[in-house]
């Protein structure tokens, strides 16, 4: 693959500068990397969320490609309509170009309120890429818990307090839920491993049917770490096995990157304010539980990789 400089020269900037996302926001990095995945023209949709509100404050827009925001829970159904219109007009000869379609949603818009629309669009087999930029809570409205918030994190609607250690449930596994739709391509990625991310985006855009990218996307406001440390935080999510870089390519599960030795989960948790309370003596057992969960998830993925390889 070309390096990022070459890619950025080959593919024009699609999300322009001047948007109002925070300095050090993971969303714009993820979006720009994903949009390097195809040279074809792209039409984008975004669910309501930081990405949408910060890039389209009327009368301005940061989007240099056609863009639509409809509502919070319907990015996948909106892109279904656009992609169907494209097929309808293309077969009538009213559109000549090959166009690619992409929908962005946060974890709130994808794991929670938009899950039904996402599932429907995947099942119907529209040819589009769905990107969940997963920052593990409703960050646009001030860090409320979501189905993607990890166990033990303190959020504003599941805060840590005297009687609670923060969120008391483990997150749901959206990538596995999506993979269960048996779409051509699904993957997990994060911004620190840009080569891995762009490669996955290329595969997603090239897929003959729906494709899904679940991108762990740091939010320093909600995760509470110094904004300049974004890449280190992303890297520690990968190196601890908190966010395994996997793909499900036509049913075959695969690790696209494996750290030589997984680091202890504390390395991911420690720098983040949302996990600060876990390091108190009375909460340390929670860290052990998180470690246990990371380990068992890793093992589960290894089994899946092994089993699906045999099937394939």
């Amino acid at each position, binding site marked *: 693959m070309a390096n990022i400089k070459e890619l950025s020269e080959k593919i024009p900037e699609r999300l322009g500068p001047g948007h109002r996302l925070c300095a050090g926001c993971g969303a714009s990095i993820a979006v720009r990397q994903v949009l390097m995945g195809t040279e074809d023209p792209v039409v984008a949709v975004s669910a309501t969320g930081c990405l949408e509100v910060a890039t389209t404050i*009327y009368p301005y827009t940061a989007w240099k490609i056609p863009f639509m925001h409809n509502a919070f829970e319907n990015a996948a159904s909106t*892109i279904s309509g656009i992609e169907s219109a494209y097929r309808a*007009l293309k077969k009538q000869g009213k559109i000549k170009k090959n166009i690619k379609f992409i929908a962005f949603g946060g974890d709130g818009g994808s794991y929670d309120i938009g899950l039904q629309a996402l599932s429907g669009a995947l099942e119907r087999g529209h040819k589009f890429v769905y990107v969940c930029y997963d920052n593990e809570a409703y960050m646009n409205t001030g860090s409320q818990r979501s189905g993607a918030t990890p166990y033990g994190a303190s959020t504003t609607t599941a805060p840590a307090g005297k009687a609670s250690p923060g969120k008391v449930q483990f997150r749901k596994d959206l990538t596995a839920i999506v993979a269960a739709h048996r779409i051509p391509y699904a993957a997990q990625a994060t911004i620190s491993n840009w080569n891995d991310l762009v490669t996955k985006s290329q595969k997603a855009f090239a897929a003959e049917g729906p494709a899904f990218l679940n991108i762990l996307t740091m939010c320093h406001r909600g995760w509470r770490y110094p904004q300049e440390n974004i890449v280190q935080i992303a890297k520690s999510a990968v190196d601890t096995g908190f966010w395994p870089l996997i793909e499900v390519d036509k049913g075959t599960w695969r690790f696209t990157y494996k750290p030589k030795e997984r680091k202890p989960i504390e390395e991911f948790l420690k720098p983040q304010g949302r996990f600060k309370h876990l390091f108190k003596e009375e909460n340390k057992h929670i860290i052990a539980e998180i470690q246990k969960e990371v380990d068992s998830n890793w093992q589960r993925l290894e089994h899946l990789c092994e089993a699906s390889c045999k099937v394939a």
Partner: protein
Amino acid sequence: MNKVVALTGDQAAAEAMRQIEPDVVAAYPITPQTEIVMNFAQYVADGRVQTEMIPVESEHSAMSACVGAAASGARTMTATSANGLALMWEIVYIAASTRLPIVMPVVNRALSGPINIHCDHSDTMGARDSGWLQVYCENNQEVYENVIMAVKIAEHKDILLPVMVCQDGFITSHAVEGVKPYEDKRVKDFVGEYRIQHSLLDVDRPVTYGPLDLQDYYFEHKRQQAEAVKNSLKVIPHIFAEFKKHFGVEYDFIETYKMDDADIAIIALSSTAGTAKVVVDELRAEGKKAGLLRPRFFRPFPKEMLVQALKGLKAVAIMDRSESFSGRGGPLFAEMRSALLDEADRPLTVNYIYGLGGRDIDTKQIKSVYTDLEKIAAENKVKHLINYLGVRGEK
């Protein structure tokens, strides 16, 4: 004109859709709209239309997909009823404020709860402030013709608003009537091609749809939207004229039946007006000066025409097939009373809420309303302003 064929109201809507052959239809089945979706799906399956049909997983996604498709330059339709309309509510508003000319047959059905599948107007009356235009159909022929006309209205460059074509659940949607459809080509010629000004698929001229619109612009956009609905009152008559020229059939915002010398009248929407006409004929045979006024459009609200039609009347009963829980009558009553308020010479008005959840409305009940009106006219006094017709217990 072609020969008469037997069609239900749902089939009439589906037949119009087949002839229009939209680029995209995104729909989810719900009683009593189901037959529209089923019939249209068969047209797609048989290759009779080239439409891309999106069998969405909910009405919310139906309207969401319609918004995406319409903004991409596709002629786009869906259809729904009651709870389905309620589920798509959020996006119904977005479709209108994005000025997307989506056409949606709505088969009126009572909103839950309790759950009920039969006719009343609580679904579309609830959506009256959404910025959609609303046409109400008396019979299956009108359903057929209004669906065709709605495309032209919605897409007119000086309107660009979505349109609901409403008909009464089961009463017309499942009743077989004689309908005279036009030749396919004539319908296609009439609706023409949909040409969007700013398409999402025009990748060389990228546009942003659905931006964040805050205190500094939102109000102006809403003001413009209100103006667009108001302005449609001026533009729609041109489409009536075009329809008449093309098909030889005359339409207007309202229908008057034996109103010219009437002393008393009923105002009713959709199929109830058909029943009331029978009663008017009976009363006229008895020498009573009874009439009927039927608003075809509720949005835009043809205030001037309605007021004009009521000039010189003594008493008018406004029939509402939905409850607004205001304690001040149904939505049609409230709007009619407001419209008449500025008139020095205005008839006495009385409200009848009837037929909720599909409760039958028959000629006997309608006759009793005219009898009440005769008394009101004679005494020049309304004793019971809000009445419930055909209900057990307190009226």
